[in-house]
């Protein structure tokens, strides 16, 4: 699994870089527009170790942010699933806030929360929670009549039970979304670092952009890809194990 994922990623990455280089050769672009393979290689050697450490750093925050956004999305979805005014209000809030670009909201967040880890985590979580929210909302607001009827009829239905039933019946869908949203946590963290950190791979990318150094960016993308692949494989393993446990006969 891990092996396959990584192989696939390397093929993909090689194809991407190959395409860029082909462009370079075809249009006769000079090294400052698209760096040559030699420069990419040298940059990798020089910055590889430091960037790998930065990616690990970022991954750490991303894992936290992902957890936070799962909790956040679940909480919001549970309320927003209600058909009444409060539910509509929370839905409106969640949807509208999402349409604000984080860069526009970030200054306000910094004003309100300061610039500790909290703000960075929150930015990462805000970027990652919304797709989770959408799926949770879809799953949590669709009744499973054949199971719920009994609890309704006997007056035993609670909102927690309802959520549990619907989540369980859609376990596979939820696992797909939760695992997939991990990559969003990654990008969320990187963006947060990009805006306001002094560590992590997002910070390195920021500097590389400032220095107009595409070779560095390509090295960073490689390491982000490897890090993400590792994390996804881990999460998928966990998801599959959970599903097996929950669905055992």
């Amino acid at each position, binding site marked *: 699994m891990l092996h396959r994922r990584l192989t696939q990623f390397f093929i993909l990455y090689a194809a991407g870089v190959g395409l860029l280089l082909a462009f370079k050769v075809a249009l006769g672009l000079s090294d400052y527009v698209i760096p040559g393979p030699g420069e990419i290689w040298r940059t990798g050697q020089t910055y590889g170790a430091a960037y790998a450490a930065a990616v690990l750093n970022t991954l750490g925050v991303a894992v936290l942010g992902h957890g936070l956004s799962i909790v956040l999305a679940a909480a919001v979805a549970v309320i927003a699933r209600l058909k009444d005014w409060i539910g509509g209000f929370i839905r409106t809030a969640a949807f509208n806030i999402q349409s604000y670009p984080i860069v526009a909201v970030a200054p306000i967040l910094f004003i309100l929360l300061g610039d500790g880890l909290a703000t960075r985590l929150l930015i990462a979580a805000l970027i990652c929670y919304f797709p989770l929210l959408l799926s949770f909302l879809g799953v949590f607001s669709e009744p499973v009549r*054949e199971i719920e*009827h*009994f609890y309704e*009829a*006997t007056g*035993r239905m609670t909102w927690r039970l309802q959520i549990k039933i619907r989540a369980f019946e859609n376990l596979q869908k939820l696992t797909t979304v939760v695992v997939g949203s991990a990559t969003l946590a990654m990008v969320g963290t990187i963006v947060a670092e990009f805006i306001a950190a002094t560590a992590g791979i997002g910070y390195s990318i920021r500097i590389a952009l400032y220095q107009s150094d595409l070779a560095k960016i390509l090295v960073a993308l490689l390491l982000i890809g490897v890090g993400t692949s590792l994390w996804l494989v881990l999460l998928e393993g966990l998801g599959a194990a959970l599903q097996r446990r929950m*669905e055992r*006969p």
Partner: protein
Amino acid sequence: MELEGQDIAYRYPNAAADLFEGLDFRIRGPGFHALFGPSGVGKSTLARLLSGSLAGQRGRLNARGMDRVLYTYNLERLPGWTTLREHFEETASASGRPRLETLLDTFDIRPLADARFPRLSLGQQNRANLVRYLLQEFDLLIMDESLANVDEATRHRILLRIKALFPERCFLYISHNVAEVARFCGDVLVLRGHPKRPPLVVVPGGDQREGAEPDPARLERAMLAIVHAA
């Protein structure tokens, strides 16, 4: 205890015509009664109206001492995350819990008590579902084809036991098995297809009890009456 319907009519939203209208009936408890009729005539609909899980009927429904009406149907599922026993114990009412062991034997699902619902066979699913309803408090339990996928021997044993275990309750049994309805039920409410009048007639059934033998002649008569009415 009694549930009386006067001039009941219902039309599905979007439907062009009433499914039924002018239904008059009286379900008297305690007792084990049946609702019978051809497929598509509206039995499940009427049952859901009686239990309140469907609304919008016209006419009057009067309940006297029959407030807790439960409706169960054969497609219901138990949650997949617990074993049957855990589910039964969690959902049983205080008064129902002591009955659990008896019901596990009656329904022949003791060997399955530690299994989870999704892997059960159809008949096993039917039985597990019915057991949990019998652990509840209720005045009237409407069983919509609840034992349709259970073999006859088991089904008959179950019906007789239910009648013995719950002498104070009222049941409305929906089934397509004429012989069974005629043999085990008190009143058989026969819901009739469209042009027929009146739209609902009541035929007395054999109402056989545990230990008693059915009277073949009475049974034959009941069956004929039911088939004739439907």
